[in-house]
C-alpha cells in the first residue's frame, strides 16, 4: 500500500518532469502564494505583538491616570508667561479620593522630573520618579540587587534611590552601585539602595524607559525638590503635585468600572481643562486584539485569492496535461486501470505540484520575515498555525483544482482515448 503510494507519487513526479518549465511555473504560482501569506501574517503578528506586549506591560488590571499639560491657550503663549508658573494635573488629595472610592485597588502615586544624575565622572540626564513602595508590584518589576523603597523610607523621607538597570550600568560600569551615592541635580546626594532587573519595555508616556529611571521615595522627592519644578525642556516653571496615579484592581473584570469611577470623580476639576488622561491598558489590549483579528481576516482573504490564482494555474495546466496525455489514459484503461486509478494519478500530479509549491513556499515564507527583521528592523512573528494553515490550504488547492481535470481524464471513452493522436 505504501509502496503503491510511493509509486504513484514517483509517477506523478516523472510526468511533471516531462514539462519542467510548465510544471515549475505552475508550482511557483502556489509557492509565492504560500510564501506571501506566511510573510504577511508574520509581519502583521510582529507589529501587533509589540503593541500587545506594551499594553500587557502596562498591566491588564491597572487603570492609569496621568497628568497632561493642557493645550496652550492664546493668552498663555505670550512672552511674559515664561515667568508664570504653569499649574496643572493630579493632586495628592485626588489620589486619596481615588483610594476611598476604590478600596479594593492599590493606589500608587508618582511624581516625575528631569534631572542630571552624577557619579564621579559619570553623568546622565534622566527621569527621576518619586514614588511609593507598591509601585514595584503594580508595574510588575523586580529588584535585581539590594532593595526597593520601603514605608520607612517614606516616613523618614530618606535620600535613597533605586536605579533602573541601564542607568546603573551607565553610572557604574565597573563598580557595584549598592551603598554608593549619586548626586541628583546639583545639591542632593542620594544613597543607592537597589538596582532593578532589566525590563526592556517600551518607553513610558514620559518618554523614558523604566530601565533608565531613578526611583526615590515620593516624600523625599516632595521635600527636596517640591511641587514646582522648572521643566528643562520648555524652560518653564510647572506646579504639578502628581504625574500619575496608578490603580491596580484585583482582576481584569474590575478595570472598566474603576475607570468609570475615576473619570466621574475627575471630571469636575479636570474635565474642562483636559489636563488629565485615563488609560485602561486592558481596553487598549482588547482593541488591538480586535484590530489584529480583523487584519488577519483581511490577510486570509488576500491569501485565499493568491492561492485561488495558483489553483487556477494548476487547473489550467492539468487540463492541458490531460488532453496531451489522452492516449496514455487510453493505454492505461486498456491495461486495466479503473476510473479511480486515473483520477488518483492526475490528482496526485496536481497535489505534487501544489504540495511542492507549498513546501518551498513555507521555506521562503520563513526566510522573508528574517530578512525584514534584519534589513527593516521591523519585528516579525511566524506562528506555527499560520504556517500549517498556509501549507494545508496549498495542498488542498491542488486537490480541489485537480479534481475536475482528473475527473475528465477518468471519464474519457477508452476507445476514443486510444484513437487520439
Amino acid at each position, binding site marked *: 500500500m505504501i509502496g503503491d503510494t510511493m509509486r504513484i507519487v514517483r509517477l506523478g513526479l516523472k510526468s511533471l518532469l516531462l514539462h519542467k518549465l510548465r510544471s515549475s511555473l505552475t508550482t511557483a504560482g502556489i509557492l509565492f502564494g504560500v510564501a506571501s501569506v506566511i510573510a504577511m501574517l508574520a509581519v502583521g503578528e510582529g507589529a501587533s505583538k509589540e503593541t500587545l506586549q506594551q499594553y500587557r506591560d502596562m498591566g491588564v488590571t491597572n487603570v492609569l491616570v496621568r497628568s497632561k499639560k493642557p493645550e496652550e491657550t492664546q493668552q498663555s503663549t505670550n512672552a511674559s508667561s515664561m515667568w508664570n508658573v504653569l499649574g496643572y494635573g493630579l493632586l495628592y488629595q485626588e489620589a486619596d479620593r481615588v483610594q476611598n472610592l476604590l478600596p479594593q485597588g492599590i493606589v500608587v502615586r508618582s511624581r516625575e522630573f528631569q534631572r542630571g544624575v552624577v557619579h564621579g565622572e559619570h553623568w546622565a540626564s534622566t527621569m527621576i520618579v518619586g514614588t511609593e513602595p507598591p509601585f514595584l508590584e503594580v508595574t510588575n518589576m523586580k529588584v535585581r540587587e539590594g532593595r526597593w523603597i520601603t514605608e520607612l523610607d517614606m516616613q523618614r523621607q530618606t535620600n535613597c534611590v533605586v536605579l533602573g538597570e541601564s542607568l546603573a550600568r551607565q553610572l557604574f560600569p565597573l563598580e557595584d552601585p549598592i551603598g554608593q551615592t549619586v548626586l541628583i541635580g546639583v545639591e542632593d546626594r542620594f544613597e543607592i539602595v537597589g538596582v532593578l532587573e532589566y525590563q526592556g519595555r517600551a518607553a513610558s508616556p514620559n518618554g523614558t524607559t523604566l530601565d533608565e529611571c531613578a526611583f526615590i521615595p515620593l516624600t523625599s522627592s516632595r521635600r527636596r525638590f517640591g511641587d514646582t519644578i522648572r521643566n528643562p525642556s520648555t524652560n518653564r516653571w510647572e506646579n504639578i503635585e502628581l504625574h500619575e496615579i496608578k490603580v491596580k484592581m484585583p482582576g481584569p473584570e474590575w478595570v472598566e468600572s474603576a475607570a468609570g469611577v475615576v473619570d466621574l470623580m475627575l471630571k469636575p476639576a479636570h474635565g474642562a481643562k483636559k489636563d488629565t488622561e485615563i488609560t485602561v491598558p486592558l481596553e487598549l489590549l482588547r482593541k488591538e486584539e480586535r484590530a489584529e483579528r480583523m487584519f488577519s481576516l483581511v490577510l486570509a482573504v488576500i491569501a485565499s485569492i493568491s492561492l485561488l490564482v495558483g489553483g487556477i494555474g494548476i487547473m489550467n495546466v492539468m487540463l492541458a496535461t490531460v488532453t496531451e496525455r489522452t492516449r496514455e489514459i487510453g*493505454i492505461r484503461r*486498456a491495461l486495466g486501470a479503473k476510473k479511480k486509478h486515473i483520477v488518483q494519478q492526475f490528482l496526485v500530479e496536481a497535489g505534487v505540484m501544489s504540495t511542492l509549491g507549498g513546501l518551498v513556499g513555507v521555506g521562503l515564507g520563513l526566510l522573508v520575515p528574517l530578512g525584514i527583521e534584519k534589513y527593516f528592523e521591523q519585528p516579525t512573528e511566524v506562528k506555527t498555525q499560520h504556517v500549517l494553515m498556509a501549507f494545508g490550504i496549498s495542498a488542498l488547492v491542488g486537490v480541489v483544482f485537480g479534481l475536475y481535470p482528473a475527473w475528465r481524464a477518468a471519464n474519457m471513452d477508452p476507445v476514443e482515448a486510444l484513437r487520439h493522436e
Partner: protein
Amino acid sequence: MVPVAVVPAAAGLTVATEDPRVTAATDRPIIAEFVDVHRHYVMGKDNVVRALNGVSMQVRKGDYLAIMGRSGSGKSTMLNILGGLDRPTTGEYRVGGRDVGKLDDDALSDVRGREIGFIFQSFNLIPQLTVLENLEVPLFYQGRVGPESRAKAQYLADRVGLGKRLEHKPMELSGGQQQRVAIARALMNDPLFLLADEATGNLDSNTEREILDLFDDLRKDGVTIVIVTHNPKVAERADLTLWLKDGQVEKLVDNRAAAPAAGGAP
C-alpha cells in the same frame, strides 16, 4: 515463472453460420464468445451505423485467429468489444464465463486487466516510463507490483529478447523492439488471450516476420492469439481467418486446410 499451459493447438473456432465447415467443435474450452452481437452507432435521427450487425463466434483456448475484412467492415469494432473496451449494443459477449455487457465500468476494467493482453499498432508504450515500468503497469492496477512482478518482467523481457533493456525508455528502442516490449507487457497478466490490432502495421517486413515468429512461439506454448489485420501474409500465419463484411461474418477459413504443414494440426 509464467504459467503458460502447453496445450497443443488445433482448430477450434466455431462460428454460428450455416456453413457446416466452420461449426466443427473441439473439446478445447471456449474462452470468449459472441452471441448475436450488434454494435450500432446512432449518428443522427435516421442514420444508424451498424458496425457489427449480428456476429456470433467463439474463441477457444489455444486458438490463433486472424480477423480480416475490408476497411469499415467492423474489425476494430469487434476487437474493441473482444477487449472489453466497448460493449455490444445488443447481444452477448461472454468472456471467462461472464457477460461483459452487464458489467459495470470497474468490473470491465478488471476484465481488461486480468483476462486480456492488448497489442496495438502503434505499440502504445508510456513514454515517460522505462521498459520495466511499462511492463509492470498491468499488474500495478491489480495491486500486484513487487519483487515477483519484477522477476516476471525480467523473464518476459528475456523471452522477447530485450532482457538487457529494462531500464531504457521506449524512445531509445526501435519500433520492432517497442512492439516486443508491448507483447511482453500483454503477457504480464497471464491473459486468457492476446488481442492485436494491426500489430505489425507500423513495421518493415523483416521486423514483421520477427514479430510473427514470436507469435508462433507463443502459441506453441498455448497462448491464445486474436489478431486484426489487412495483410494476407500476416493472416495466413494464423490457424483460422474470420472474414468480416458489413458487420457480419462472411466466412471462416481454416488456413491449415490450405497449407497443412504450416499449422500444428494432426
